């Protein structure tokens, strides 16, 4: 999945590096073969359900749940057509709005918060940090009732704004913790240099800190986006028709009359698309972001 294609070596060094690589391959072969086989097995086991979903999405409903499973079939776009016919787009837009809006809010709030908990620690920052993460220890069910009542009272039931705020609150602790971990890794002298050079706190964050932790922020944003996009419990509890999101839409296929497996698969595929897209775009950054400390 990641770009691993080596850049072609310059002509003069070509034979050298190729020979070195060949030598390495030769000496490592027996062990690496076993490791590779294991990796592929595990990878395939994890990938299989996704593949099955992909295949099923192109089947007719009658071929979708047969025993034994159908492997050979004539692909059809019927299911996709049916989904778009069932008004998929509003759900999709609701999901997109809530996810993007909450992710932007989370990053905007988490960076200064993380700054105040690491580089310029406020008093009792440890307690604050623990408080943040402790909000995630409570199961969502425990707060859904008050949340519902509040939403009802301020007239934000079945409203994307409410959902965005809830997702922001939900993701903020994780984002603060992640970004804080990137901040504490920053070389202190670089930040001091910017202060001596006359940068204000705002300038320091925008011009020095953010560019240095950009990969980490990208990784954080992606994770928050995925969490918000996949969130089901709050969505199903706080929305009904106007603001319902894609996960809510998907459950519509699990009906009393039976499972529409092919259609569900097709819908799931469309639901997964933005996340895959976001992951693909952020890929280059992600790898660096998730291993920011190690690289440096």
């Amino acid at each position, binding site marked *: 999945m990641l770009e691993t294609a080596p850049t072609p070596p310059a002509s003069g060094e070509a034979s050298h590096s190729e020979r070195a690589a060949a030598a390495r391959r030769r000496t490592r072969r027996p062990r690496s073969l076993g490791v590779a086989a294991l990796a592929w097995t595990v990878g395939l086991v994890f990938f299989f359900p996704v593949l099955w979903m992909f295949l099923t999405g192109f089947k007719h409903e009658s071929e979708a749940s047969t025993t034994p499973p159908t492997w050979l079939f004539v692909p059809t776009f019927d299911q996709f057509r049916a989904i778009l016919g069932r008004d998929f787009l509003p759900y999709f837009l609701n999901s997109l709005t809530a996810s993007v809006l909450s992710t932007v809010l989370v990053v905007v709030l988490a960076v200064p918060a993380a700054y105040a908990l690491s580089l310029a620690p406020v008093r009792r920052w440890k307690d604050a940090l623990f408080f943040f993460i402790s909000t995630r220890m409570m199961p969502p069910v425990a707060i859904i009732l008050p949340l519902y009542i509040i939403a009802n009272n301020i007239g934000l039931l079945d409203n994307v704004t409410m959902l965005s705020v809830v997702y922001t609150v939900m993701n903020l602790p994780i984002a603060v913790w992640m970004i804080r971990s990137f901040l504490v890794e920053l070389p202190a002298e670089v930040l*001091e*240099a*910017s*202060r*001596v*050079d*006359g940068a204000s706190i705002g300038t320091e964050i925008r*011009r020095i800190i953010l560019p*240095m932790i950009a990969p980490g922020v990208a990784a954080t944003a992606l994770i928050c986006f995925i969490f918000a996009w996949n969130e089901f419990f709050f969505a199903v509890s706080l929305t009904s028709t106007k603001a319902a999101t894609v996960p809510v839409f998907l459950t519509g296929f699990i009906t009393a009359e039976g499972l529409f497996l092919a259609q569900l698969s097709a819908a799931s595929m469309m639901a997964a698309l933005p996340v895959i897209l976001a992951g693909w775009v952020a890929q280059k950054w992600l790898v660096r972001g998730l291993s920011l400390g190690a690289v440096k």
Partner: protein
Amino acid sequence: MATITYEAATRFYPGSERPAVDGLEISIEDGEFLVLVGPSGCGKSTSLRMLAGLEDVDEGAIRIGDRDVTTLAPGRRDVAMVFQSYALYPHMNVAENMAFALEMAKMPKQERRRRVREAARILDLEPFLDRKPKSLSGGQRQRVAMGRAIVREPQAFLMDEPLSNLDAKLRVSTRSQIAALQKRLGVTTVYVTHDQVEAMTMGDRVAVLNEGVLQQCDSPRALYQRPANAFVAGFIGSPAMNIREFAVHDGHARIGDRDVEVSDELRAALADEGLDRVLLGFRPESVDLVGPSEGFTASVQLVEELGADAYLYCSIAGTDHAGDPDIVTRIDPARPPRVGETVHLRVRAGHEHAFSPVTGERLSS
């Protein structure tokens, strides 16, 4: 450009009883190159960071020119700092690194460009202006860090061990370049190092710190010739000054198996202090090899030949500890004695330094 004054500046780190810098008093003249030197952990960096505004001043004050900067933010002190790690901005190229402070000062683009180009010319950085720090060698990065300081034309340069990440050869050449550049620009400079050779060769004056306390602040020569106490005497000079404690009776110091007469002046000083022992220090080059009837007796433990010089490590006869050599002397490398040989040594008259064994302070003038 300005004078810099530490007025009893003191820094307590949170959670530590002892101040890291204790009542530091130094007045630095306009355009002067002052070196702060001392062993690791003595408070050099802390002193410099207090001046930069990166560390609080808990007691006392610091002035730059006639401004009291004690509580001023670092960016408003108009000083430029060169860090040990260089602390370049990794995401900016060389030109942007140097221009950053100018941009913060809202300098017009034209002037910014001119200053960066000028600094790049002085420091031989012109081919690298578009490069990121990552793709520069250590020496080039060091020069960028210097460039970032000089484009600002600040009141003062502050440098914290800027050469310690360079290899030995580059360190020596860069050392003289920095000193020359400083003279040319005439900017008041405070330079921190733990390397006493750097301190002696670069500084107009050298301030020796130990355990947060200023020991002596003087010209390199005065520091060498007239150390104020036993710590400075032992710290400045390589190989270090020989400092040993001797008993004094009837105006004679007992050195090994011989009694050596001490000067009248020292006798008077000892009498004033009521001391019957003395810390005597003498540099390796102040000890001569003499004939068997003179001086005191010692046996050679090690001969170190460096080409231009040779050093004898000897133990004084009559002392029982066989381990460490008692005394190091510089000798003519043409005819070095052999290990195990017995030699006779004499300290050149007037070249000895006497310190109180109680306080370590200098006794003789």
